[in-house]
């Protein structure tokens, strides 16, 4: 499903963010990407979304050679991914249901599909009652649920989450994780970069630890544990 093979990334300013990273994620897995800031987590996420291009090595996602993608092919590649960010990134001038529908409009879905799918994902994240509200009227947890709904409405094969609980209190964070796990159970591969020690330890999922641009640990049902050495 997702294969990184000896991937390195050196930014234009000369900073070497990744130094030969290799891992493989199977379809349907739930994987935590763990490490301190500037360890290389975000770079891995960016490479997966083709926001940045790898300097060396190869990346395959869903049998697509990500390095070889041409600029005009990138949008179609990204439609197979769902993305959730720490800062939610909702459109403030659109209400909940419009924010979700927007993702479908962009990929050219018909009005009929939009009317069918949007209420379905909103009920999946528990926001049916707030469909007409605007982002500023919602709590942080609720906004992140809208973002998740938007990420999965086009049925991606991979859900990529970059610190999705970073701005949330622990209780809300657990609610979000429950939703993520639910999505994973329905067959979507989930890759989540996080610092949240409690969550990683509670979930007992596969953990890939990145430190200073290399993978220091990769174990199933792992914990955050003894990672931080500094």
């Amino acid at each position, binding site marked *: 499903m997702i294969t990184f093979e000896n991937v390195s990334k050196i930014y234009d300013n000369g900073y070497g963010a990744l130094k030969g990273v290799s891992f493989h994620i199977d379809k349907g897995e739930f994987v935590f990407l763990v490490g301190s800031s500037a360890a290389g987590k975000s770079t891995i996420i960016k490479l997966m979304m083709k926001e940045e291009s790898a300097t060396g090595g190869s990346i395959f996602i869903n049998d697509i050679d990500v390095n070889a993608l041409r600029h005009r092919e990138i*949008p179609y590649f990204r439609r197979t*991914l769902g993305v959730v960010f720490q800062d939610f990134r909702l459109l403030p001038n659109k209400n909940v249901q419009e924010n979700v529908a927007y993702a479908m409009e962009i*990929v050219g879905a018909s009005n009929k599909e939009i009317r069918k799918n949007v209420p379905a994902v909103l009920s999946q994240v528990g926001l049916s009652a707030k469909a007409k509200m605007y982002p500023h009227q919602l709590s942080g947890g609720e906004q992140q649920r809208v973002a998740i709904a938007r990420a999965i409405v086009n049925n991606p094969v991979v859900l990529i989450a970059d610190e999705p609980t970073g701005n949330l209190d622990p209780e809300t964070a657990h609610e979000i994780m429950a939703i993520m796990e639910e999505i994973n159970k329905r067959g979507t591969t989930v890759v989540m970069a996080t610092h949240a020690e409690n969550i990683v330890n509670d979930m007992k999922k596969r953990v890939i630890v990145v430190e200073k641009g290399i993978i220091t640990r990769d174990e199933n049902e792992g914990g955050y544990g003894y990672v931080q050495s500094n």
Partner: protein
Amino acid sequence: MFRAIRRAFTEGVSGMAKNGLMTVTSLLVVTACIFVFGVFLMCIFNINHMTSKMANDYQVDVYVSRDVTVADDSVSVFVARDFSFDDAAYQEKLNSVETLIMGVPNVDVSSIAYTSAKTKLEGFLSALSEEEKADYEVPSDGVIADSFSLRLEDYDSKVETLRLLGELKGVQEVLDGKETYAYLSSLGGLSSQVSTARYDEIKAQIKTEIMKLGNVDSQDIGFVDGKEKFASFKEGLSAQELKDFEGLPDDLIPDAYTVKLKDLSIADETIAELEALPYVESVENSRELIAVIDNLKDIVQKISIWIIVAFALVSLFIISNTIKLTVHNRRKEINIMKYVGATDSYIRGPFIMEGIMLGILSALFAFFVSQWTYEGLMSAISSSASAISANIGLMKFADLWGSLLGAYLVLGGVIGAFGSSISVRRYLHV
């Protein structure tokens, strides 16, 4: 497709509304730019219109001369009179001279005509007042000799023929038309014009000669009667103005053939050929005016190209900056769209549409300003100098608004689309 356009349109409008002051500013600037472009465009339209109208109306007037000095190519052969001869012997002498003349090569035999000195003198005297007549106390028929007038078949060898005629026995003097005229007018009172019959011949000959010229449209040769032209000219004058023309002969203006040319570019050569024709008094045409307008057209076109380039660049800059503002306002949204998998063209659509709408709206404003200005200018011109505007052939706004609006919309649309795509490009590489 339709949904995409509608979306681009509504979002484009909302972008314009959100930019508020910046939108208004760029509308004004771009309107001004397009208007300046339009001023030059309208000048070009009018100049083109004028030149084509002039080329259509262009004609050469070939004036036919009645003047003996120009038109009389006859040769007068004066017969020496010996007063001791009796009339019968003199008559014999006349006959022998006529026979000798007929024997000279290059003489048009059928044109030989005898003019008695007596007739000529009577004609001369009849033109004088009683007091003047008293000065000519010796109305002897010897003052002027009898003569034969004749024409030549080939005027190129005129000198040689005149010499042969002068050597004939019994000939006193030979004068060509011009010399005859000079001699006769030194005696005074003789008409300076050729006879009506001869004049008709001359007219026919000129027409034939004109039709032989290659660049002349032989199907379209007109004739203007000088007397009628003068008469109709005088009809248009007030009694006061008419006084200035009192006493002038009614054939003051010579008759003319009006000639249209097939190829105006070699008009100068053709005019020279027309001027070289015999019996042609003068040739008039509006060639100089056409040259001036052609020049003007050239200059205006050259200036226009630079003006258009300069103002297109200004418009481009203004529109691209306005759109840049919209793009900047919506950069988060663009970012989100990129992550969700929107194609570049989907993202670009509303911005390009906003640019195009800015351009087209400016074009429409500029069009109304142009109409207002042009019509104002027209009415000012026509009220101050009606004759000029009628003759020069300025276009009415109704005749040029279509091309003008078309050019404006194309220019506005292209500048808008291009200006906005410049601004969007930078933000698309996420």
